[in-house]
């Protein structure tokens, strides 16, 4: 059974045409993988569809801009996967 991280990495590889093997749990979506904001919208759409959730991108962006959260919290892939798991759990609660 594939993990949330595996699914996210597959989505990124397919959406952004990035070799799957170069995507790691510690990869930062923008700093390491150089994914721009438009490509990230495509990724968000694919994640929303795959997991039946709605990534709160506006809230995350606001937190980063306000300095109350680091980009690593949301855009390092292992952390992003944790956020997705939290959203899935919240949906089922």
């Amino acid at each position: 059974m594939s993990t949330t991280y595996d699914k996210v990495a597959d989505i990124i590889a397919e959406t952004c045409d990035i070799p799957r093997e170069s995507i790691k749990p510690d990869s930062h979506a923008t700093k390491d993988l150089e994914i721009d904001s438009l490509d990230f919208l495509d990724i968000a759409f694919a994640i929303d569809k795959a997991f039946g959730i709605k990534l709160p991108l506006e809230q995350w962006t606001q937190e980063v801009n306000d300095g109350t959260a680091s980009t690593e919290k949301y855009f390092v892939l292992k952390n992003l996967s944790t956020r997705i798991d939290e959203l899935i759990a919240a949906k089922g609660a």
Partner: protein
Amino acid sequence: MRLEYFQMIDRIVEVDLDARRLRAACTVPKESPIFEGHFPTYPLMPGVLLIECMAQTTGWLVCMLGRFSAMPFLAGVKEGKFRTLVFPGDRLEFDGSVVHEGSGYTIAECVGRRDGKKVCDAQLTFRIMPFPSPQFREAFFAWGERLELPIKELVR
């Protein structure tokens, strides 16, 4: 359709907000300076302007679903297809639908038809952002009211 002003939609034919669908209609003008260049002696509706028709059709729908609280800016076009030539004087209908409302973005699809036959289709991505200024918002509302959109009811 007023090509020089990028006002592509003449009227909204029907809206179903529950189904997240909107149908718009327009007629390609018989004359326009655009046709002097595209193309000399063979005037054709440019494909990029058909994309704009689809963007405006679905853009108005996105506005209505959001009760005009923010502005959809076209951010991406996928699978844009122009299936046949479109000429001056052609009457077109566009069927737009929202397929996903994300956080700060919306994905829509649109199909353009002439006499019931598909002429173009695409998937469109919009970024949802605040209106750049109150003046812009007012001008935008005036544009919507010319299309008889129920703006006052939706923004109440």
